């Protein structure tokens, strides 16, 4: 049963407009800090995917660490992190050093790449009061033994959290969390479906804000917000626009600035993307029935029913095929292939994908970005030129 939670607008007025919801989501999405007194306790996790349900079942709030954006001044982290490293590692360290994240009660990172693994070492040396560790999700999900391993690692996480909160986390609590998150993922999928069917009705920036807001509040509250958003979207008056339909890749970890997404949307409809893909990592409902081991169900979903990214190897999901499917499902005519600066997995995939698109004669634009970019004129020019070339294609 999902608890109805009032949208915290500061009152009992539930007649919000779509603009109200968007503003609320914007405010939430752009929050970076974790205050000392936040209740319940907060567990921060580095990209891409994290089994939030287990944290949620422990009565804690999982907080996705999404970097410092383009308003953060990095002063302290440069002395700690090598120069040829992506900005999100630097800005997250900065947020630790400047106290922004002092309210966190734990820090997890995953073996998505070598720089991310280092975050555990940095956190442990600098913030010993915040227990930090690697959740060792496997890079091999193609073995018969994969589910069992993920299950064991999730059980380990469960006992770590249980020790932290001072009580067991019963199966029933995890099942209840699974239901909340299943609903949440369904609502996210619905948003993406609206985008795909009617891109003039819902922009990518808006979708992004709706999704990102969920990383700052309890999922129950987010579900209410999303349901409200969908209801209001259905009523939204729409002005038809004619822009090329494209897909966007590269936002799976370090996040591009909103202005960058806006710049692209000025010229194109981004129908599908991998922005914050970790939030939608599990692609179907996870079995939450009594009598089903919920941790096993969570582990099995990770292995069998999940999305794809450059930082999770899966022999069943060659990146080129995944992109071609994405283009087809989105009825998109082109791809925007981006990578964060110094993101080795992203850069490698960018090249492989562009070769395939060359072979398929699908137009594409290659861009590099940093979360801390503030000037977009050059990018706007490239995107405009690209969109124009699509119109003449």
């Amino acid at each position, binding site marked *: 049963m999902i608890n109805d939670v009032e949208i915290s607008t500061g009152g009992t007025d539930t007649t919000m407009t779509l603009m109200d919801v968007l503003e609320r989501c914007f405010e939430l999405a752009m929050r970076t800090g974790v205050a000392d007194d936040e209740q319940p306790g907060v567990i921060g996790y580095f990209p891409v995917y994290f089994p939030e349900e287990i944290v949620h079942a422990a009565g804690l709030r999982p907080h996705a660490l999404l970097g410092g954006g383009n308003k953060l001044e990095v002063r302290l982290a440069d*002395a*700690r*992190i*090598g120069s*040829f*490293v992506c900005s999100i*590692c630097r800005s997250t*360290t900065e947020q630790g050093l400047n106290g922004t994240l002092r309210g966190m009660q734990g820090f997890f990172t995953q*073996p*998505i*790449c*070598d*720089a991310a*693994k*280092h975050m*555990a*070492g*940095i956190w*442990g*040396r*600098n913030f010993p009061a915040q*227990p*930090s*560790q*690697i*959740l*060792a999700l*496997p*890079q*091999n999900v*193609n*073995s*018969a*033994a994969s589910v*069992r*391993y993920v299950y*064991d*690692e999730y059980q*380990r996480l469960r006992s770590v959290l249980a020790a932290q909160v001072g009580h067991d986390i019963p199966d029933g609590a995890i099942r209840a969390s699974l239901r909340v998150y299943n609903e949440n993922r369904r609502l996210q999928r619905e948003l993406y479906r609206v985008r795909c069917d009617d891109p003039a009705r819902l922009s990518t920036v808006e979708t992004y804000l709706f999704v990102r807001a969920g990383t700052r509040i309890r999922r129950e509250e987010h579900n209410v917000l999303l349901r409200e958003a969908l209801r209001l979207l259905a009523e939204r008056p729409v002005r038809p626009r004619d822009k090329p339909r494209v897909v966007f890749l590269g936002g799976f970890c370090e996040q591009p600035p909103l202005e960058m997404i806006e710049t692209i949307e000025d010229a194109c409809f981004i129908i599908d993307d991998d922005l914050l893909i970790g939030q939608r990592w599990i692609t179907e409902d996870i079995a939450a029935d009594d009598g089903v081991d919920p941790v096993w169900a969570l582990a099995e979903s990770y292995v069998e029913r999940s999305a794809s990214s*450059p*930082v999770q*190897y899966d*022999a069943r999901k*060659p*990146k080129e095929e995944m992109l071609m499917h994405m283009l087809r499902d989105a009825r998109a005519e082109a791809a925007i292939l981006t*990578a964060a*600066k*110094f993101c*080795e*997995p992203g*850069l*490698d*995939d960018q*090249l*492989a994908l*562009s*070769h395939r698109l060359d072979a398929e004669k699908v137009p594409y634009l290659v861009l590099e970005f940093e979360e801390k970019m503030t000037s977009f004129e050059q990018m706007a020019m490239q995107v405009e030129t690209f969109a124009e070339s699509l119109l003449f294609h």
Partner: protein
Amino acid sequence: MSVITEGLDARTTGQRLVNQWLASLGTARARGQPVAYVFVMGNAIEILRAFGFEMVFPEINSLQTGVRKAAPDFIAKAEDFGFSPDVCSYVKADVGLMLSNMQHPSGIRMPVPDLAIASSLCNVYIKWAEIWERRFGTPAFVLDIPGKRFAAWKSPVGSPQHLTDARWVEGQFRDLIARCEQITGKKFDSDRLAEVEAHVNEMIRLWIEILAFNQHRPAPYNSMLDGLTYMGVLNAWRGTPEGVEYMRLLHAEIAGKVARGEGRVPHERFRLVFSGTPCYVNMRRLIELFESHGGVFAASDYLTYAAGGLDSAGLFYDTSRPLESLAEVTTLASQMGLSNHFFSHHALAQQMKDFAADGIVYHGIKSCRTVATSMADNREYVTTRHGMPTLYIESDLIDPRYWSDAQIKNRVDAFFEVLEQRRNLQSIREC
């Protein structure tokens, strides 16, 4: 057939072994031998040997392009092909090799693989294997070996956590065995695996002693010069009688030096620990900069990683349960040695003590985030917490564009001035 000739020293023997190995790679296809591409940190060489695979080490191929001054050309080919300048230079050198019809500067035409094993101990290995998937059509076998989760992580042998992780690794080994049976048409021979492991056990024993020999004063070899040669042979001949022979020879020679008080550096003044990888394009020069001041690298974390963690599990294979034991030891080697990059501050401080070292030299690598990401933070911690003098220098594995002789020399000279000043102060205090 042993190539070990009686009466030859370790160095010559080692050279011959490496040459023989390279030559056999060149003829592998013609002889109908299956070929495996493996990485140094995390592989299943023991299983592959049991199936008779020829072993190609792309990391060794790439470092050799640096040593033989062919790297700029290969890297340029890769960058022209579209690889970002920021990608690992080993990967780019290998792409250059692929674009050069597999013609390696050693004179060998490298065979394409039937099997590629990429461990999770360096995520770039996996992206590298994906390139082979596309180039050669060789499916990657990703071997996930769970590492240390945090700095104080302990995984005592036989503990529930150790066994959980080892069981996962064993499951993957079984998948690998099935793949090898498919490729070679041979059935897995557990006895053969046990045989190979027995050889590795002897190599482990000898390697641990060789590493410990450098605790003597003066240090008989330079961890970051001589050590590199030892490792080349050790990796290529791991699990073979020849590999054991070589190490016995080497062990005896070094033991002899220790007995005679013979040091690598004629007048050893400072003993140092090295953290990071070599700069293969200029390693001799880099070491010279230190040795000219009487400085020797008594220890390094490189000899742990690049020897595949031979010294780190603290265990030998139990040849009565070869597959299970392989999984257990591999898991421990990963957790106690090969994932130390991320948490190495304690291990380095321990090495400082064990080897009575005067300082640590950190060598950051522009294109390697595995090595370099948190080096500065690690260094800050070690310097502050342990009050140890440290030096930070930066270049690259094999890309000569990142080597600046004057700048590096400047830093090295200044570091020795620091060490001298420190020593003078200490002797003043002791007066």
